[in-house]
């Protein structure tokens, strides 16, 4: 039973436009969420996180939105750049809060940003 789901395996956008990557979760006790980015032949790298006490967290071109009632989070990249082309994973700490190193990952969404 998948607790974290990314239902879009791939997404293609034009450079300069907005990229929106989505993630759904099943456990309402989860209260901390992370996004990782992975380039080929490299390990995932932490991108941005959000706590359930917030509904939005922004870091430069990257913004994560959290809708707790819908158990849904999204990552917005504005403007998208070709260097953003990568696989994006949403992840949740297994205990639901930030005090465990065990992460549950979604399946990932491959983003392609076309020049």
């Amino acid at each position, binding site marked *: 039973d998948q607790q974290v789901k990314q239902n879009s395996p791939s997404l293609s956008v034009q450079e300069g436009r907005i990229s929106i990557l989505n993630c759904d979760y099943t456990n309402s006790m989860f209260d*901390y969420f992370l996004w990782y980015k992975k380039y080929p*032949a490299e390990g995932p790298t932490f991108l941005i996180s959000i706590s359930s006490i917030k509904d939005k967290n922004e870091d430069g071109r990257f913004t994560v939105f959290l809708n707790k009632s819908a158990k849904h989070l999204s990552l917005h990249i504005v403007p998208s750049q070709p260097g953003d082309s990568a696989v994006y994973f949403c*992840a949740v700490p297994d205990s639901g809060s930030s005090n*465990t*190193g*065990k*992460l549950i990952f979604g399946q*990932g969404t491959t983003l392609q940003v076309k020049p």
Partner: protein
Amino acid sequence: DAGVTQSPTHLIKTRGQQVTLRCSPKSGHDTVSWYQQALGQGPQFIFQYYEEEERQRGNFPDRFSGHQFPNYSSELNVNALLLGDSALYLCASSLDPASTDTQYFGPGTRLTVL
């Protein structure tokens, strides 16, 4: 400052064999976690080592075992390999067992079981 390193990069084994994968954590990190990433899937947590002991374990059989050395490096051992063990094995290190957004991942070892 060297990041997380893993060896080997690629490995081909046959069913029933045993394999050992190695990980050196980022300098200053004392906690190592291992993940399995099957094709088209997200990474799945195997186990975590801290202070040379297994602290947490995911839903993996006993064929998967590990070790952490006094210098914090770690090994992942898989016995009696199955075709389904073919995957990318990722190692992540952190400053403490509870760390999440400060986990640093290595590039992984691609294991193919024939």
